[in-house]
């Protein structure tokens, strides 16, 4: 009360400069503050709407039976056991193929190629292109190569191989980050001990880079789990328990899509499956982010 009065009196003496500018400044400051809060609140509301929708509609149909029962009547009843098995197979194939390739490329790029050289620039750009490529294009490629040319047909194998191509750039990037976070002094210490590059790599660098490597695997897993378009024409979408990798099978993402689009009365089951998918992905993503923070802290400390 008293305070605000005095403030007014005193700003009068500051008026010699330009008070109008200040007043305008305060107004625009207020508007801008409102805008950033508004943006964040909008995002929060939409987020709650989206997550709440999935949670509320999905949780009702969720039970242990749902996880272990076969798909009945196109998914209107029963559960998603075969879908989970197919998903696991496809993701396993994708990771088993992509992991060694990704790790090897990451080691070559971060340890053997000069960081700013033309070659590594070119390689990195090609990874960026691969990372940005629409998944449906991977689907077409996989269909032409794995399904038809190599004769795998609609199968978990075709789907897994297609996804392997897709997750490669993400895994490589995470692995590179992990390796680059290993302090330079480790390598120098190894060199000073006259160790060979191979044994420095094996005994020093890889163990130190494990968090990054795990982050890469998880990232690839997340990408693979979330993918739909690339699998429509490679793994197919049979709903039954696969008996070998040459069987067709659908991942949980495709199951959600199919229930939502093609099954009248399938919405609740779609939401239940979506809830499982979202929870899996959130767990994976949080682990990756925390690993990333940890890696950054380590590299800062070093």
């Amino acid at each position: 009360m008293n305070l605000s009065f005095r403030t007014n009196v005193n700003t009068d003496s500051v008026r010699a400069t330009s008070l109008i500018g200040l007043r305008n400044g305060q107004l625009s400051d207020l508007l801008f503050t409102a805008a950033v809060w508004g943006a964040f609140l909008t995002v929060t509301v939409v987020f709650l709407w989206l997550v709440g929708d999935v949670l509320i509609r999905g949780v009702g149909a969720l039970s242990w039976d749902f996880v272990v029962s076969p798909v009945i009547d196109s998914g209107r009843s029963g559960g998603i056991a075969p879908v989970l098995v197919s998903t696991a197979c496809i993701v396993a194939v994708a990771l088993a193929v992509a992991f060694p390739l990704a790790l090897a490329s990451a080691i070559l790029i971060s340890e053997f190629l000069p960081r700013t050289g033309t070659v590594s620039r070119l390689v990195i750009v090609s990874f960026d292109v691969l990372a940005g490529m629409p998944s449906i294009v991977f689907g077409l490629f996989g269909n032409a190569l794995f399904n038809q040319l190599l004769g795998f047909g609609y199968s978990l194998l075709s789907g897994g191989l297609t996804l392997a191509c897709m997750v490669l750039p993400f895994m490589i990037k995470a692995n590179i980050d992990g390796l680059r976070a290993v302090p330079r002094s480790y390598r120098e210490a190894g060199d000073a001990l006259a160790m060979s590059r191979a044994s420095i790599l094996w005994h020093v660098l890889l163990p130190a880079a494990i968090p990054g490597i795990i982050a890469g695997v998880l990232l690839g897993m997340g990408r693979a789990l979330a993918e739909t378009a690339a699998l429509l024409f490679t793994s197919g979408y049979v709903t039954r328990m696969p008996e070998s990798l040459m069987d067709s099978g659908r991942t949980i993402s495709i199951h959600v899509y199919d229930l939502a689009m093609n099954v009248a009365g399938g919405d609740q089951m779609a939401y239940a499956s979506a809830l499982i998918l979202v929870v899996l992905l959130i767990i994976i993503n949080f682990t990756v982010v925390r690993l990333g923070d940890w890696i950054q802290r380590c590299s800062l400390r070093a």
Partner: protein
Amino acid sequence: MKCLFACGRITVLALVAYWIGFGSSHAGENLRLLATGSSTVAPVMAELARKYEQAHPGARIDVQTGGSSRGIADMINGLCDMGMVSRDLKPSERVLHAYTIAHDGIAVITHRDNPIDVLDRARLIEIYRGEVRDWGDVGGAAGVPIVVVNKAAGRSTLELFLHYLDLSPDQVHSDIIIGDNQQGLKTVAGNRSGIGYVSIGAALHAQQEGVPIKLLTLEGAEPTIANVTAGNYPITRPLNIVTRKPAQGAVSELLAFIHSDEGASVIESLNFVPVR
């Protein structure tokens, strides 16, 4: 590091074991068939396959939808063992062999709450040409826009329906394009002002399941199995299985099962007309 490699090794071993184990355990009676194509045929085929598998342990018949044209395309590309096609083969497709397993018709559907019960062919043409855009103009609720649901190209239901209306695909004005029968049912059930057309068998089945749709009477004939069987209903079609070579082995065994009395009862239970 060691732990990581151990995990990797276990995964690889498990995968190999899984693959080899399952691959070989059924080697003796290795009957594996994949049927792809028409979403009208798919539910019938799936149910027939289930019954057939019960009678023949070890047999495995997988079914995938995608439209009649997919059945033909997959057959030509060698991606499936049986193509499902819900129409007659075109002259260019006659290199394939077709086996009719049932008959079906196409029903015009609206939402259950739509007051319309009957539409004649001329009205349908006006609606699908986009000349009539309001339900009020065809005797329904005035002021409610008509949302025209149309099938995607390559679907035989589309071809037959447009043939019946004597329209070319360009003449059709549609608001939503759908693929499978099931998607058509779902779209119309979810939109009170929608109109669409799907397989009679699928529509009747959905209605029994409580999906809120209504089948319209066309030219005085209700879309029922009886009318399709008697030939009274204006849009009917055969449901076919196509193969590249004449059916033999497992496929012909399956066809024999389909044409048996047991097969016929399965087909009837799903509101389709078996081949007599």
